[in-house]
């Protein structure tokens, strides 16, 4: 790892001020640090944001659950409030990585990184999340732009994620046996009026599967998507799963999720 300057910001304003084209925000460091160790990323400055009090914590209102960006996965999975309001979100957090990762990794870090096989982006899409940054509010379906790409501008810092509480929801993942990242993860959420079927791992970026959403909005039963033959042409293919297998898994996991709702 190359030398870098470490800064611990006391608030978002300071963090934003320290940001430059050769800096990165550091929360749990679950991706940033390994990337730097492997020489895949180099930064002149690392701006630690996990000491910013305002960025941590969970608030539940009647309609939504708002989670501070620097809140750790373990805090989300252990939160009684989250368990009560959106149980699927707490179980998603419980299934991320391993205990070491859950004890350090943060929700904001996961979303800002937008790894195509990360779990949290699917929750954002399924639960109509609003991403609060130090500059603006961004709807989840406009936030995730592509592989490791988001709507965030340089120096823009996620402060909190506000999830809409659904009527019913479930997240089902077929994990990569080695990394335990999602080969395919499907987050189904039934809101008043419509159903979201957010898919992670299958393509270069998380997406809402319109075909299944439509079918399930009409009839919220796994039979309405059973045997659905999804187009696999844009799906990822690697040594762990071909595009065809992923396409099949998307339907299987969606069915499981509906059944678990």
């Amino acid at each position, binding site marked *: 790892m190359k030398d870098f300057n470490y800064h611990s910001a006391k608030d978002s304003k300071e963090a934003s001020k320290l940001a430059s084209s050769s800096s990165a925000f550091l929360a749990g460091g679950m991706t940033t640090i390994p990337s730097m160790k492997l020489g895949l990323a180099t930064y002149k400055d690392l701006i630690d944001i996990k000491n910013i009090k305002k960025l941590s914590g969970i608030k539940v209102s009647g309609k939504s659950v708002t989670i501070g960006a620097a809140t750790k996965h373990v805090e989300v999975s252990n939160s009684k409030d989250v368990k009560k309001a959106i149980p699927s979100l707490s179980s998603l957090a419980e299934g991320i990585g391993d205990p070491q990762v859950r004890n350090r990794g943060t929700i904001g870090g996961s979303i800002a990184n937008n790894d195509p096989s990360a779990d949290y982006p699917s929750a954002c899409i399924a639960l109509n999340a609003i991403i609060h940054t130090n500059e603006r509010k961004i709807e989840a379906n406009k936030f995730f732009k592509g592989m490791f790409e988001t709507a965030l501008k340089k120096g823009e810092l996620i402060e909190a994620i506000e999830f809409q509480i659904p009527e019913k929801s479930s997240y089902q993942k*077929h994990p990569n046996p*080695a990394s335990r*990242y999602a080969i395919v993860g499907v987050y189904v959420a039934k809101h008043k009026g419509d159903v979201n079927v957010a898919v992670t791992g299958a393509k270069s970026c998380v997406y809402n599967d319109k075909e299944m959403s439509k079918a399930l909005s009409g009839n919220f039963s796994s039979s309405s998507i059973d045997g659905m033959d999804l187009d696999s042409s844009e799906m990822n293919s690697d*040594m*762990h799963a*071909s595009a065809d*297998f992923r396409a099949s898994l998307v339907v299987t996991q969606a069915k499981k999720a509906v059944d678990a709702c």
Partner: protein
Amino acid sequence: MASLVGSRVERKEDKRFLTGKGRYTADINLANQTYAIFVRSPHARASIKKLNIDKALKSSGVVSILTGKEIADDKIGGLIAGWAIRSEDGTEMKCPGNPPLAKDNVNFVGDPVAVVIAESLVEAKEAAEKVEVDYKVLKAVTSTADAMNGDTIHEGIDKNLCFDWLLGDRQKVKDAFDKADKVISIDIINNRLIPNAMEPRACVADYNAASEEITLYTTSQNPHLSRLIMSAFGNVAPEHKLRVVAPDVGGGFGSKINVYNEDIVCSWAAKKINRAIKWVAERSESFLTDIHGRDHVTHAELAVTKDGKFLGFKNETIANLGAYARVFGTVTPTYLFGPCATGVYEIPAAYTNVKAVYTNTAPVDAYRGAGRPEATYTIERLVEKASMELGIDKTELRIKNFPTAFPFKQTLVHTVDSGDYVAGMEKAKQMADYKGFEARRKESEAKGKLRGIGVTSYFEACGIAPSAAVMSLGCGVGLWESAEVRFNPTGQVTVYTGSHSHGQSHQTTFAQIAADELGVPIENIDIVHGDTDKGTFGMGTYGSRSLAVGGIAIVNACKKIVEKGKRVTAKMLEANPEDVEFKDGEFIVSKSNKKKTIGEVAFACYLPGVRDEMKSPLPEGDEPGLKETSFYDPSNFSFPAGTHIAEVEIDPETGHVKLEKYTACDDFGRIINPMVVEGQVHGGLAQGIGQALYENAEYDETGQLMTGSYMDYTMPRADNFPEFNIGYTCTHATTNPLGVKGCGEAGAIAAPPTVMNAVIDALGGQEVTMPATAEKVWKACKNLKKSNAKAA
């Protein structure tokens, strides 16, 4: 005094391991030490056109940069194959040179070309990035099956063929096949694995200019053997000027048998720069450069009668050696494989033919089980297939072909001294509730799941030793083991063993043995290993040999102590040595109340005089001191055996295989410490099940390792396993005084075919290669659905 052998004595080593006080090679830091980083080939096959270190030399903190040229100029030798194999046509095997730093050609990704030595690790890394190597990239050979058709990797080695070896009689086999009612044939791949010891390899080399002595701390399973190779073949230093210390070592599984490039380079370079050098592998270096295991492509056939009697067996295997032949690289796919190819069965005619090929991949060598898992996988897959094709119950078919009497002279090489395979099978069936399977299958079916059951009966030849035997088969050394038992004057005992513990609990089990033999409390016994300056020469630990060979050396040395003790007691108590008996630490003159404790005898041996009298308690001809050595060379291998049964449930929609039940019923002969044996069985099973369901080392066609990290190489985790159901039968080995057999590799040998037989049973007999990943199984389930639909 109650016997300690056979009881669950708590591990003496756990105090330091569980409190973080273990002392591993990476924990060793020497005054004024430097840090080494190896510059490695990013290409699988290339020639080195130019290597420029000028920029790197100017980098901050650099002490020295050494390349293949310097090491060749200093006539430092390369890495070697320890076992000479002869081809069927009588020609000797063909091995390329394997210099510790490549000078002209690189042959796998990770092959080192230079070492950068600097004041700090960071500076060494930065400088290493500045070493400029101009490679001419050549077409790589990576496929085991096609290696003989690829470009010639090593000049003069046609078809990339190291040897074409035969064990057995082709004509007899042909005759047997001519008489067969049916021939069962199978094509299988034994997937390539990466050992993944928890502790990555490391070494710290030091040079003392005054004594001209090199000390190498290294992660080795066999420090004496390492010293011998580095001295005799590496020309690093004469043996008396080279001390090799293998302190606490965090797992080996065979991957730490070899002397590696880094051991030789750091030892040589430490002398050159007259400073200590430390090197610790990063995990990615372990993936690339530790020896890999398995990697066979096999076609096998079994000739049977219609009522299920086995008549003949043939096995045609291509074994991948990787880029170079290393210490056990050539014996693993031959004498550790071929003799076990016929499994636990009476098969009157058999042969095994192995073509060992070079490829542009990491060297392949002994990994837990070494040759025997490959052999067992082949025969047990074949027998399972025979059971399906003949319509004979899989356990009945096996029993029908088990030997009925012991010693059992096998068709190929071994004479198995002891065993009771039927008893093992019956007990395993009971433990696994074999009878109840059909009901469980129906329950799974009702849930939309596929359930399968798989059986394996195995034996293995371990306790690798008999020197005359192994040397007649081409081994470069005798594989005896040594022990030295030393009493202190005040009665405590230090046992020096040539075996090495890197997870095997020798400090406990060897102390249990010595405590029983000598009647000394276990807390007064220390086991010392892993330092060429301390112990007598030893051959180290691999092939489940520590107890059956090293343990017996301890027993024999203890017996010599007792013999001397009897003579000394007789002299002290004015009796005949023949009248002295030894029991529970006391020498007793029979039919009298006269006795001496072993502590008193030890004291007398070290202080052989009496105040005011010119008198010695020592008999004439006996020297003072109480210390005995044994070099034990057994008369045969030891042959553990057993039956394992697995049950899996498959989700046809996702292809997910859930291992529901795993039963292991093993015969390890006498068990010294059941808790330690359970640990060994669990570990072996984890690795064996890992091979069947998860692990796979995969290279792409350019020779890049695709599974070079834990993101892609699936190491099994605790939640992948059910609670293991473990039991034993026991027949004592007749070839050693303790009646013990090996236990360290059994799980890794038996589990792959057991699990795969269950998976393939669930899939209605459809072949799936290891590892049975979700996608492969999902595809098979789709085929099954189609063929079932057709049948309906």
